[in-house]
C-alpha cells in the first residue's frame, strides 16, 4: 500500500492537460477524438494541439494511468469518409492507478482552494 502511494505521489502535480484527460475519462471510456472535443469545449478555444495531446495520451497509457480498449470504427459517423476507412478506433479508459492519481490530484487542488489564504485571494477578486 505504501508502495502504491509512492507511485501515485510521484506523478503529482499533474499537468493541466493530463488532469483534463483523466477527468474526462472518469465518466467512462472514450476515444481520443472525442476527448479532444470535450476538453476543448470545457476549456474553450482550440488550445489543444494534436501532437502534444497524443503524446501525453501515449505517455499516460505507457505509464499505466489509462488503459486502451479496442472498439469498432463503425461507431464514428462524423468523420470524412476516406479517413474513417480501415481504421480501428482506439478507446481509452481510466485504470485503477489513473483513478488514484486523479483523485490525489483533485484532493491536492481542493486542499489548495480551501486554504484560508486562497479564500482571501478569491474574495479580493
Amino acid at each position: 500500500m505504501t508502495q502504491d502511494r509512492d507511485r501515485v505521489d510521484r506523478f503529482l502535480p499533474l499537468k493541466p492537460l493530463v488532469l483534463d484527460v483523466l477527468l474526462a475519462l472518469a465518466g467512462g471510456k472514450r476515444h481520443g477524438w472525442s476527448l479532444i472535443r470535450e476538453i476543448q469545449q470545457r476549456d474553450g478555444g482550440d488550445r489543444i494541439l494534436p501532437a502534444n495531446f497524443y503524446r501525453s495520451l501515449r505517455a499516460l497509457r505507457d505509464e499505466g494511468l489509462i488503459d486502451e480498449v479496442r472498439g469498432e470504427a463503425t461507431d464514428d459517423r462524423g468523420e470524412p469518409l476516406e479517413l474513417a476507412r480501415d481504421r480501428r478506433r482506439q478507446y481509452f479508459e481510466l485504470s485503477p492507478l489513473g483513478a488514484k492519481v486523479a483523485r490525489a490530484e483533485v484532493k491536492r487542488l481542493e486542499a489548495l482552494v480551501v486554504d484560508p489564504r486562497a479564500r482571501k485571494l478569491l474574495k479580493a477578486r
Partner: protein
Amino acid sequence: MRISRSLYRSLLRLCPPDFRAEFGAEMEDAFAASLAGARGVHKIAVWLRALGDLVRHGTGARHDAWRRFRNTSGHVEYRSGGWWMDTFRHDLRHAARAIARQPVTSMIVIFTLALAIGANTAVFSAVHTALLRQLPYIEPDALVQIYEKRPAEGVFTNSVSPADYQDWAQLSTSFSVIAAALESAVDLTGSGEPERLNAASVTASFFDVFGVRALHGRTFAAGEDTTGRNRVVVLEHGLWQQRFGGDPSIVGSTIQLNDIPNQVIGVLPPDARFPIGEARLFVPVVLQPTPERPPRASHYLTVVARLKPGVAIEQARAEMDRIGRDLEAQYPDLSRGHGSHVVPLAPEMVKGVRSMLLVLSAAVAFIMLIAWINVTNLLLASTAGRNREMAVRAAIGAGRTRLLRQMLVETSLLATIGGVAGMLVAYWGVQLLATQMPPTHRPHASVLMSMPVLLFTAGACVLSGLLAGILPAWHLVGSDPATALKEGGRSPVALRRRLRFGLIVAEIACTTLLLVGAGLTLRSFRQVLMEPAGIETAERLTFNIRLPRARYATPESFAQFFGELARRIADEPAVRRVGATSSLPLTPGDPRYGIVVDGYERGPEDGPTRAHPRAVTPGYLSAVGMRIVEGRALSDADRHGPKVVVINETMARRYWRSGSALGGRVRMSAEQDWREVVGVSADVKHWGLDAPVAAEMYIPLEQFPQQAMWMVVESAATPASLVPVLTQHVRQLDPNLPLSNVRTFDDVAARSVGQRRFTMMLLASFAVLALVLAAAGIYGVMAHLVSLRTPEIGVRLTLGARPGAVMRQVLGEGALQAGIGLIIGLAASFTLMRGMRAILFGIEPTDPVTLGSVGVSLMLVALLAVLVPAVRAMRVDPITALRQ
C-alpha cells in the same frame, strides 16, 4: 483543405513511425477540425501552432520511445528538455568504451589526426596572422605604400629618392598624410655596454600615417625632421622594457645615440609594429641634400601614405601618374622613365611570405586529405570485426540513424582527442613558422587561442571526425543485419574492397602531389646553391662597425680608422686575409647611385645610367675570393693615387657594349672627377643567389669614405676563438665602438636562402610523412585483403596454382593501385604545380627529373609495402587455409 491535410500529413513525419501509425489519422482530423473552425488570418495562426506542436512534441515523442527503452528500472521521470543531451552523453560513453577496446588502432588514428590537424592549425595561424587579419592600425584599408617604378626596366618596387618624396608630398592631394622612412642602425652608448640597435629614421609624419600614438610622452611633432630640432628619439616598447626597465620617467631624459645626446620624447605601445625592419627606436630623418646622397639620384626611402577619406586608390594612382609625368618633364636627366607605383600596404607587407604560405597551405591540406584516407582505411579494417556488434544492436531495435550517429560520435571523439593533441603540434609549428615571418606579422603562440584559429581547429576536428567516420559507419550500418549475423562477423568483401581500392588510389595521388611539390623545391634549392656566387664564404668571419659622427667628423677619419683596423687585424698570425666593404654581399641595405659613363650614349629604351658603388679596402676583393677577369685588382697604391674603380662584368657589358671597359671613365653624378676603370671583376651574387646581378663598382675607401663598413676576415681558426681578438683590436682603436652582426660568412649566405631552405625542409618533411602514411595505407589494405582471401588462396594452391603466381598477383594488385594513383597525381601536378612557380628557381614546374624520380621512388615504396603481404600470400599453407 485537401492541400492542408496532405501538407500536415507530410509534416507528421516529424513524429516517430509507430506514433504516426497509431495516432496520425486522428491528429490529422483534429488539425483539420481546428483549421475548419478558423477564418482568415486565424488559419495562419492555426498552422503556426500546429507546426510548433509537431516540431516540439513530434520529435519529442521520438525521445519518449528511446527513454522507455533505456529505463529498465521502471522509474519514470516527468522531465522535459535535455533529451538529446542525454543520448549524446550515452553515445559519448559508448564511444569512449569502443575506443578503449582497440587501443592500438585508436592511438594510430589519434596520432595521425594530431599531426594533420596540428600542421593545418599551425599553417592556418600563420595565414590568419599574415593574410587574413586586418592590420592593427586605424582604418588600415586606407594605407598605401608608394614605390618608384621604372616600367622600361621592369622595375615597379624601387625605393624612393628624397627629392621625389618631397615633390610627391608637396604636389599630391590624394593623401591625408605621407611619410618616408629608412632602416638604419644606431649605437646606444653611455649607460652600460655599447649596443648596436636596429633603428628607423622616419619623417615626422610617420606615426600619423599609421595613427599610432605614444604610450608615454608623444611621437614626433611637425618640423622635428629638420636639422637642429632632430635630436629626439621615440623608443619601441620592448627596448624601453629591457634597457630602461619600463620606467616612464625616461621620457624627457637624454640618451647617447652614436655619441650624440638625443632626448627621449616618447615610448610606443607594446603592439606597435611598422613595415620598416625590426626597429627598436625611431629617430627623425633629415632629408636634406648631402654630397654623398644626391637627393634625386639615390633611392633609399620607403614611402607610406594614408588616403584621404573617400579617395579611391585609383584616383591616387591617376594623380601620382600625372605628378610623375610633370617631374619627368622637369628633370629629364634623372627622372626619365620614372613614375610612382601606389599599392595597398597590407599585401605589400607580406608579399615575401605570401607564396610560401599558400604553398604550405596546399601542402597541409593534402596532408589532411591523406590522413583522412588513412584513418578511413584503418577504421574500415577495424570495423570489419564490429559487423556483428552492429548487427546485434540493429536486430534488437537500434535504428539506422542511431547506429550511424553512434559511429560518428565515436570518430568525432577520436578526432577531438587528435585535435587537442594537434594543438601541441601547432604550438610548436607556430613558433617554427614565426621565424620566417616579417616582424609585423609574426604569429605569437597565443594566436592559437584566438577565436578564428580555435574555430578553425574545432572545425577541422569535427569535419575530420565526420569525414573519417562516414564511410566506415555507412558501410557498417548499411549492411544487412541478418547477413552479417549469418556470416559470423565476416564482412561482405566486394564493396569494402572497391572502396578501399579507391581510397588507396586517392591517397597515392595526393602523396604524388606532395612529393612533386617537395621535389621541386628541393631541386630548385639545389639549383640556387649551385649558382656560382662569385665569392667564397667558407672560413670567413664578418662584422659591422659604424663610426659615430660625433667623434669621427671627417670622411678622412673614416678611411683612416678602417684602414688602420684592417692593417692591425691582418697582422694577427691566425688571419689569412682581411678586407672591408661598405656593402656585404647577401645582406640587405644597398644604395644605388646615378652615374655618368664617358662615351656611353643612352638609347631611348635604356634605363637610367646607374650603378651600386662599394667602398672597399684594397684587400677586400681577395678576402672574399672575387675573381678579376680583366685588368687588375685594387692595390695599396690606389689609396692615395689617381681616382680608379673596378667594375663588375655586368656593368662592363651594359655600358661598354663594344670593346673593353678597361681605361674607360666613369663618375658618380654628384662628383666632378672622372674615375678610370682599372679592372673588371667576375659578377657577385650580391642580392641573393636567386636574384639577378646589377652593375657594381668597387672604389678605394679613401676615395669614397663611408661611415659604416663590413669587415671580412679569412682565417683557418674557429670563428669563436677569433671574435675576442677582433673585439680587442677594435677596443684598442676606440673603446666605445660596438661590433654588430658578428657572423660567419657561411651563416650570412645560409640566411640569404633561409626562407627557401625552410620551405623546402617543411615540404620535404610533409612529403616524407605522406609517403609513410601512404605506404602504411597500402600495406594495411593489402595485408587485410590477403588475410581475407587466405581460404581462396588455399584452394588455388591446392588446385595447383604456383606460389610465385599468387605472389605476383598480390604484387600486381598493389602495383595497379599505386600506378593509377601515380598517374592521376602526376596529371594533377601538371596543373596544380603551376602555382609553385613563384617559389621555384631555375626549373619548370613540370621538371622531368623531379616527376620521374617521384614516380620511381613512389612505385618502389608502394611495392615494398605490398611485398610483405605478397610473400605471406605465397606462403599460405593450403591445409591450414582450408581448415579455416
